[in-house]
Structure formats: structure tokens, C-alpha cells
């Protein structure tokens, strides 16, 4: 059941267009008939309980895995039809923030941010330095440029990774669980950066998260995943007003409901008191 709470969800200028995608691992279907679009210039939130395949969706968008059926298009290009060279050309237009930052541990903060520029451009060193410092200034870490990555806190590492993700001026920025494990101050900083990057640079953003309250403050449109497909779309406010039980459970953080608290198991009493034990 898809609770389409907004007719405006119909794609006008989608940068990401996922149509009828099915994907499974080891005989278990993660997606079956997934439809999702991210509009140019918007912040799109992809939410859902743990294990619904949010990170798998990102891997599909980046071409790290291919769908069993359906079509994943980014910038109008079918990801599955691209060869390695084409995929790499497309990825240069996309920035990605990993859940743990995924900074290169043998490089300093400065060199981490400079890494994509050194690999893909032949910029003279003074210009490259200015660009890196500008990106570090944008995330508030210009003063940490010479630090080793081991000296960074979780929030700082996430911000360095964000500076690295935007250093090539991507058209699309993908965030994988950007709020996990952050203290309220770092969380607020990341949230503000997502919003300001979207507003000032016009970057289209896709934020995969299960932090409803945080993302609701900045997202233009939200998709709620459950059971391998989108069960609701719309603005965060519209999702909150939705009566569908699974949406209601997730948006209000109810411990039990369509997503059960207990993993299916044999009879509790029998297992505790039975002969086998």
C-alpha cells in the first residue's frame, strides 16, 4: 500500500528516478517494485525502520549493485547500462557522505579534502589549497586542516567527510545516516550544513535516515520505506498526519505495531520451561 499524501510527488525534474526496482540477497527480497524520485534542488529524506534497505538503496543509486528488475536513473542515465568508465564519470557529479565518514586514515584532514581534486584535476597547488580551505571553512574546520584524522571527534570527522563530498561541487549529495552517534551540537551543525549547502549551492540532497525529528526540520519531501517499497510520500508534516498504521508507528516511534517488537519465535513459555532446556 502506498499512502501517497501529496499529488505533487509526481516527478517534474527528477535527478534520481527509481522505477519498479526489485532487489534481493540470498533469496530474501529487500525491494519489490520500489518507486522513488528526488527532485532537482530539493532535500529528499528517505526514512524507514532499520533493515528496510535504506543503505542498499544508496548502493543502487551509486551503481555499486544492480537491481534484479526495474530502472535506476541518475541525471537521466540508466545506472545499470553504464560501464565502469561511465559510472565513474557519473560519480564525479555526485558527493556521498558515509555513515562513519570513511576518511582515509593515512591522510591529514587537508589531504582528505584535497583527495578528489588531486585525483580528478590538474589544478595548480595554490588554487587547490584555496579550494580546500574554502570547503573546510564552509564546515567550520579550517583550523583543523593539519590535524590527523585520528585526532577528530565523530562530529568533526563527519564534517570533514562533508567537505570532501562537496569539494568537486557535486550536483547531487547523498547522506547515509548523517546523524547517527552525534551529540546535539554536532547534530545541529550537520543539519544546518545540509540546509545551507542545499540553499546556497543549489545542491540536490538525498538524506537516508531514521531520525524523524531532525530530518523533518529541513526536508522538502520524505519517502517512508517499509516491506520493500515506499509506503508513504509527502512532506514530513503530511506524513505525521497519515493514518496508515506503519506510518503512524514510525513517525511517532511506537515500539510495537506493523513492525513487531518481537522477532518471530517459538512459544515463550515452552522455550523457558520445556524439556530441551
Amino acid at each position, binding site marked *: 500500500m502506498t499512502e501517497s499524501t501529496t499529488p505533487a510527488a509526481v516527478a517534474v525534474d527528477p535527478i534520481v528516478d527509481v522505477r519498479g526496482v526489485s532487489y534481493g540477497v540470498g533469496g530474501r527480497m529487500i525491494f519489490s517494485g520500489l518507486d522513488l524520485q528526488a527532485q532537482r534542488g530539493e532535500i529528499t529524506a528517505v526514512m524507514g525502520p532499520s533493515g528496510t534497505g535504506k543503505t542498499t538503496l544508496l548502493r543502487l543509486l*551509486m551503481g*555499486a549493485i544492480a537491481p534484479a528488475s526495474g530502472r535506476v536513473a541518475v541525471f537521466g542515465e540508466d545506472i545499470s547500462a553504464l560501464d565502469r568508465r561511465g*559510472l*565513474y*564519470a557519473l*560519480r*564525479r557529479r*555526485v558527493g*556521498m557522505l*558515509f*555513515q*562513519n565518514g*570513511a*576518511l*582515509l*586514515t593515512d591522510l591529514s584532514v587537508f589531504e582528505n579534502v584535497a*583527495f*578528489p581534486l588531486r*585525483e*580528478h584535476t590538474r589544478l595548480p597547488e595554490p588554487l587547490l589549497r584555496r579550494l580546500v580551505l574554502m570547503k573546510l571553512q564552509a564546515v567550520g574546520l579550517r583550523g583543523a586542516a593539519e590535524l590527523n584524522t585520528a585526532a577528530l571527534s565523530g562530529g568533526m570527522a563527519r564534517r570533514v567527510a562533508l567537505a*570532501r563530498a562537496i569539494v568537486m561541487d557535486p550536483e547531487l549529495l547523498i547522506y547515509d545516516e548523517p546523524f547517527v552517534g552525534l551529540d546535539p551540537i554536532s547534530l545541529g551543525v550537520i543539519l544546518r550544513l545540509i540546509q545551507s549547502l542545499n540553499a546556497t549551492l543549489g545542491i540536490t540532497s538525498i538524506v537516508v535516515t531514521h531520525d524523524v525529528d531532525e530530518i523533518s526540520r529541513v526536508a522538502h519531501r520524505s519517502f517512508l520505506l517499509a516491506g520493500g517499497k515506499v509506503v508513504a510520500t509527502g512532506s514530513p508534516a503530511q506524513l505525521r498526519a497519515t493514518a496508515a498504521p506503519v506510518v503512524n508507528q514510525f513517525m511517532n516511534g511506537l515500539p510495537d505495531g506493523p513492525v513487531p517488537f518481537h522477532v518471530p519465535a517459538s512459544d515463550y513459555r515452552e522455550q523457558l520451561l520445556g524439556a530441551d532446556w
Partner: protein
Amino acid sequence: MSAAAPYHLRLADTFLKVGRVAMFLVRTGSQCLPALRRPRLLIAQIYNAGARSLIIVMLCGLFVGMVLALQGYDLLQRFGSESALGVAAALGLVKELGPVITALLFAGRAGTSLASEIGLMRATDQLSAMEMMAVDPVRHVVVPRFLGGIIAVPLLTAIFDAIGIFGAQMIGVGLLGVESGSFWSQMQSAVTTADIREGLVKSLCFGAACSLMAVYEGFHAEPTAEGVGLATTRTVVSSAILTLLLDYMLTAAFLGS
């Protein structure tokens, strides 16, 4: 695959792995030229794999040379040929013990370090991050380490040989009373360029084999603590087996030619 799996399935799995390693070698080889345009990365890896293994290689070379002198002297004196101790030690080290033991030391010291480093990069998403930044991790991470190993092992072998011969001379001449002149002059006249070439070819092949197994196991490690540990263990085991297998094949080939 578990040890309890049927024999034929384990054999098939071994052949599959050989195929996968061969394909990985082709992929790595195809990226060698582009990687050479960044010599800074290569030099750093030669330092990591080579210079940091220097102490252990020198120490082991010294002890191996000393033991070789003791055993060689004991054997040669039975035939009244103690003066050939220099030749025996030099040939044993240059053609056989130097390349083999250096490769095994390299696998244990640098190979495990390479495998765990790359495995941890996999576990912490660093390799995935490179992929997402449109940077081929094989070119950026694997190739410099692979080439660094190929260059470092022959250099380490040469140092191992030199220190080993010094150790043999120390025991043979200094302790057991072999005449210094005959020790060195017989060695000089008996050890040929072909012997040194054989040792060099062997060390190059062993360096390639040990480096390949280290980067392959690290690159394909399960992204968990246990997975990285297993990759490290597999690196040592497969490097040792491959080194000794190649040693037999190369020795047979050189003797045949």
C-alpha cells in the same frame, strides 16, 4: 568453505580461488602503468614494505649465515674440504636460502601488515569511499603496495645474502679456523653471474607472489574484525606455500636449462 565440506568441493573451491587470484593479478597489472605516474605512493610503499623489514631481515640473515657455517663446516671436514666453506655458504645463500627466507620473512612482517591495512580500509568503508569518488582503489591502494613488494624483496634478499655471508665468515674464519684467503678466493671463483641471476629471478618471483597474496587477501577481506584476522592468516599461509612451490619450479627450471 568449512573443513568438513566434501573433498571434491574443497578442491573445486581451491581452483576457483586460483582463478580469482589470477583475474585480480590481471586487473592489478592493467593498472600498473597509470599508478607509476604517482611515484610518491610507490616510494612510500617501498619504504613501508622494505625499509621497515630491514632489521628483521638483517638479524635473520646473520643467524642463518652463522648456522650455515657451523653445519657446512661439520659436513665438509668429513671430506677434508673445509676450505670450500665460503663457496658452500655463498651458493646456499644466493641461490636458495636468501630468496626463500627473505620472502617468508617479508610475508610474515610486511605481507600481514599489507593485508590487515587494506582489510581495515575495507572494513571502515575507505575503499568504498574511493569507489564513490570515482577513484579506482586497485590503482590507488593495491598497485603501489604490489609494486613496492616486488621492488623491496630483491633488495632485502641482497642484504640478507650479504649479511649471511658475513655471518658465515665470522663463524667459519673467526671461530672454526678456516683460512680467510681460501674462504674468499674460492667463493669469488665459484660463484658466477648465473648464480646471482638465479637468486634475483627467484626473489622477484617470490616478491610478486607474496605481495599479490597480501593485497588480494586484504582487498577481499570480510569487513569485520574476524575477517581481517582471517585475511592476515591466509596471507601468511598462502604466501609460504606459493613461495616454496615456486622455488621448486624455478630451481627445476634453472637446473634443466
